[in-house]
């Protein structure tokens, strides 16, 4: 039996209680709404892209601990990255959440995202963890279609 603390670890709980980059964003160049109909999670992710770099990224909305912490860590991870790198990291995160990561090889790649490795043990929570990442991808692509996990 997995330990509950593998999922609800202190880093995740910290981000849940005090999400970083939470709130509106002035001068956004793109934004998208992400929705998880299963549990009613709903986030807006806004980005400000300058010269193909993510100058700022912030989010707002409501969701469970996992989705909120994931959005918070994502904003920290993506700030200052190129759009192409953000896309690549999104794929890495999805692999991580679904348990498709072979530890050592990509560990340096994961950085803060590594705290979500426990999610893979909870298949119904994978969508919570990946919601913000799907949403930021849409915001960067300039799509104004709401993103849904279903």
């Amino acid at each position: 039996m997995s330990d509950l603390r593998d999922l609800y670890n202190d880093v995740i709980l910290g981000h849940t209680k005090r999400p970083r980059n939470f709130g509106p964003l002035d001068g956004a160049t793109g934004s998208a709404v992400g929705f998880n109909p299963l549990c009613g999670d709903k986030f807006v992710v806004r980005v400000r892209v300058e010269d193909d770099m993510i100058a700022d990224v912030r989010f707002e909305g409501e969701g469970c601990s996992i989705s909120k912490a994931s959005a918070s860590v994502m904003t920290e991870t993506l700030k200052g990255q190129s759009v192409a790198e953000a896309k690549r990291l999104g794929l890495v995160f999805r692999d991580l959440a679904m348990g498709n990561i072979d530890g050592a090889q990509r560990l340096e790649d994961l950085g803060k995202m590594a705290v979500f490795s426990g999610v893979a043990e909870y298949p119904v929570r994978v969508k919570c963890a990946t919601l913000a990442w799907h949403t930021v991808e849409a915001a960067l692509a300039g799509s104004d279609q709401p993103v849904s996990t279903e």
Partner: protein
Amino acid sequence: MSRASTAPALDVARVRADFPILTREVNGRPLVYLDNAASTHRPRPVLDAIEQFYTVSNSNVHRGVHRLSQEATQLFEDARATMAGFLGADAREIVFTRGTTESLNLVAFSYGRATLQAGDDVLLTHMEHHANIVPWQLLCEQTGATLKVVPITDAGELDLDAFDALLGDRTRIVAVTHVSNALGTINPIAELARRAHAVGAVIVVDGAQGAPHMAVDVHTLDVDFYALSGHKMYGPTGIGVLYGRRALLDAMPPWQGGGDMIRSVTFEQTTYNDAPFRFEAGTPNIAGAIGLAAAARYISALGLDAIAAREAELLAYGTQRLGEVEGLRMIGTAAHKAGVLGFVLQDIHPHDIGTILDHEGVAVRTGHHCAQPVMERFGVPATARASLGIYNTHAEIDALVAALAKVREVFA
């Protein structure tokens, strides 16, 4: 409840022994199953009836002259008679469907499409399951009729004054749930039926959460349609019933075409079969109907009044115990309630509550329970919901409360 007090009490230990699944474990802990409003489990007699059908009489119904087909037809029609008895109806008033959702769609798209016109009203309530909202929305879009919604109070009860104000001579259909799956509220169906009939409307009752938990007699309630699902009353999935008042069913056009629902077919003209067969196109869920009848017999033998009394007692205990949990807010506090305990806990998202409870072996449902208007009414994105059935115990309520302490610990 005076009738309930004279019924022999439910022997819960014996009931539990009839449900094989209750012996399994989750995460190394005994399963505590508190998600009965989503789906119940099936007792031995239901499992046996299904196996018996497939191993002895399996065949298609209604069309064969051979022995197995005759037996299958007999069992299927016996099941219809059992369900008629269960609801106090006539067998000709029982249509087998896939479940409550299909039953309600049948009423909307057969009865509703044939009778509604622009300018007519369909009256719903704010506590309906999406299954009793969306078919009516579709119907109103197609016919130009108007959907009206009766508000609910902070306790989750129907606002009966508003009901009267919205009900009028334009109201053709009143669609209301017997018991709210999100709030537990038991609606005063007989009274609503009286008021609906007084303006010439028909009343359609979503009985998904009613039939498993209390005695239902469609004549005492004086309802026109009553829909139920097998899997919520200890029967199989994929089978349900629509009760329809005979005069209404007889006059209703078919809604799906195919085999069994016809009397004769030529390319020029098809003559339809009588109700209820007219509404059962194609090979039905034969084993499902037989299993559902076994479930109806099973809970009837326990006694629906005894079941209602037991669940009321457990609900009172659960309400009291949950009331002791710091930071817990009940959603749904109607005076007249069935065994549904909906709640939120501090600002912890119900999805997190559900995951941690599952870790402790406690199965509850979290989310909007297909009743988004109810969530919006109470200003919450979702709730956690423990819902009771005939096999639940006081010890299981205690396990829920202990697991909630774990939730608070994690998020302390």
